């Protein structure tokens, strides 16, 4: 069974530039999550989709972050414009049902903002 795919693996940009991350969840998984993990900290939920609807985006900085999940499958997360404090690993995860039991994570995209 293929896991959660994310790209790119690494990204280096300058502040005020824009960047986009892509995620392909496990086939058939209804729920998709984007987490931000700053070095030395635990993951923090940015946004949660169920199929192609948003379940929770209360912690998403909407002035600069946006995400979409077209057709309830792939998802993209965008940052525009990036700030230095956005340097982190962005993790995508998916789960089979509507709840949050047993999340499967991708390897993440490591973003460095200079």
């Amino acid at each position, binding site marked *: 069974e293929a896991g959660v795919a994310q790209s790119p693996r690494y990204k280096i940009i300058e502040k005020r530039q824009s960047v986009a991350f892509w995620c392909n969840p496990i086939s058939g998984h209804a729920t998709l999550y984007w987490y931000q993990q700053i070095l030395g900290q*635990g993951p*923090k*939920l940015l946004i949660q989709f169920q199929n192609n609807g948003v379940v929770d985006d209360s912690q998403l900085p909407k002035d600069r972050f946006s995400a979409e999940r077209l057709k309830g499958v792939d998802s993209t997360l965008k940052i525009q414009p990036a700030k230095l404090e956005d340097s982190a690993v962005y993790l995508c*995860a998916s789960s089979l049902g509507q709840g*949050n039991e047993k*999340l*499967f*994570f991708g390897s993440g995209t490591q973003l460095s903002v200079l």
Partner: protein
Amino acid sequence: SQQGEEDPQALSIQEGENATMNCSYKTSINNLQWYRQNSGRGLVHLILIRSNEREKHSGRLRVTLDTSKKSSSLLITASRAADTASYFCATDYEGSGSRLTFGEGTQLTVNP
């Protein structure tokens, strides 16, 4: 903050020894999960314990939950060098709308 807090922040042991990590949280939960993260990788789900359960086992893993103390512990028995990783507890708080809140993690190093 409602996030769980792991204790200790870092733990270094020898192969064959047992490793115990603790997680404390602040409000009532639906379930609590433990995840492992190897350096530079995503998280891997280890075990889930529901609020009405007190103990669960999975291979060399044993998880306990004490809802009266709002705490959980993860025990890894007969540790191996391959167990070296960060371990996170994640809590599903009642009323959170199924949001999982992760703690800061315990960095476990198992020395060969």
